[in-house]
């Protein structure tokens, strides 16, 4: 059955799914635009053009919406990363593939600090169960592919992926290049600020990690 254009109340599963996707799209757009800012269900509702209570038909509370979106943007990021991998690529190219995907898909790292604060509240065990299973599933796929591409032994992929995600999320915290004009500081300070640029800071550490895994 086709989706009626501009439907007010979803009548079919398809329309329901479309509405759900529209809500997630709106929330994602808000996060992209406001960066670290928290978004409210009210804002999401306004953007979709529905009432707040409609949002709560699809997500029991704000926390479920946040977590569901986090899983979606996480999957999008990992898919983009896997799409950039190919057999025989160098370790440097591999690290670059990761940071390129991270720059293209900023919502994953923007949402990561948010989601840790919501897990305690308002999430049912049942919901957490499904969410965790989902995350574990796509992480395993990513790790297996990483092991294959880099020729690592089983078990090294997850360590590498975890190390990469953490270094990436840590590196972005001190990226202040855009906030500072480099003309009123000493060369040493300017150099330090350049080195803490998101991309260079990540790549420098990521290459050490890959090298270490190969050694070990």
């Amino acid at each position: 059955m086709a989706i009626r254009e501009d439907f007010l109340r979803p009548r079919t599963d398809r329309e329901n799914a479309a509405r759900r996707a529209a809500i997630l799209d709106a929330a994602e757009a808000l996060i992209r635009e406001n960066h670290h800012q928290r978004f409210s269900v009210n804002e999401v509702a306004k953007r979709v053009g529905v009432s707040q209570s409609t949002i709560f038909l699809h997500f029991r509370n704000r926390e479920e919406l946040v977590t569901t979106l986090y899983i979606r943007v996480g999957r999008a990021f990992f898919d983009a990363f896997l799409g950039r991998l190919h057999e025989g690529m160098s370790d440097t190219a591999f690290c670059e593939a990761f940071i390129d995907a991270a720059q293209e898909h900023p919502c994953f790292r923007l949402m990561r600090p948010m989601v840790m604060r919501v897990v305690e509240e308002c999430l049912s065990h049942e919901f957490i169960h499904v969410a965790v299973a989902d995350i574990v599933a796509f992480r395993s796929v990513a790790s297996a592919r990483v092991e294959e591409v880099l020729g690592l032994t089983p078990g090294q992929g997850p360590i590498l992926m975890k190390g990469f995600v953490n270094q990436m999320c840590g590196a972005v915290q001190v990226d202040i290049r855009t906030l500072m004009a480099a003309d009123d500081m000493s060369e040493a300070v300017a150099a330090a600020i350049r080195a803490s640029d998101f991309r260079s800071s990540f790549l420098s550490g990521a290459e050490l990690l890959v090298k270490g895994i190969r050694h070990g």
Partner: protein
Amino acid sequence: MPVRADFQRARNEREKSARRNEILDAADGLLLEAGNERFAISALAARVGVSKSTIFLYFANKEELLLALYARSFLRIVTQLGERLTPGMTGRAFCEAFVDCVMANPSMLLLRSQLASTIERNVTPEVMVATKTEILEYGTALTNRVEAELGLQSGYGIRMQMALINLISGAAQADTSPYLDMESLPEDIADFFQVAETRKVFMNGAEFIFCGATGRPFD
């Protein structure tokens, strides 16, 4: 000149610096209790027992105060880690010392997460450059010692330290253990969250960063 006990108005440089430290100590405590979102200057002033305007004599705004606190925590970590360095220590011993010192000064990680997004947007360039310069000086001194004591090639000390700081910041960000009551969770879910504990995640990645930087085994 000594610091008079219980002075109300700081009159000389020493008393001023004592008061400044006292404000930062109180801010440290408040930050850990309230979290950075609910951190308010009025609560801080009440805790120190001064008026809000006294706080603003020392720090132009909340962000400048938090940046000063960040820098102080960072320097303390550097100092404490410096004290634990021994010639030829193993990678594991070094990384354990590193995580101990970072966890002993939790404000650093808490504030680092808002550095780029809020703190540094509301601080004058002069203050920011002065802070960066101070952190860089202390950091470089430590880096030189780390390179010497652990036998790292020049340039690898800073790379390793930067990688370790990024790693622990990312790991702490995903650590749900402070927010969850593990006892109430079903076992398999608890397992999933437990492996996300900061120290564990850090040590797993740090091992390979160390090996990559030194070419040596971890133990």
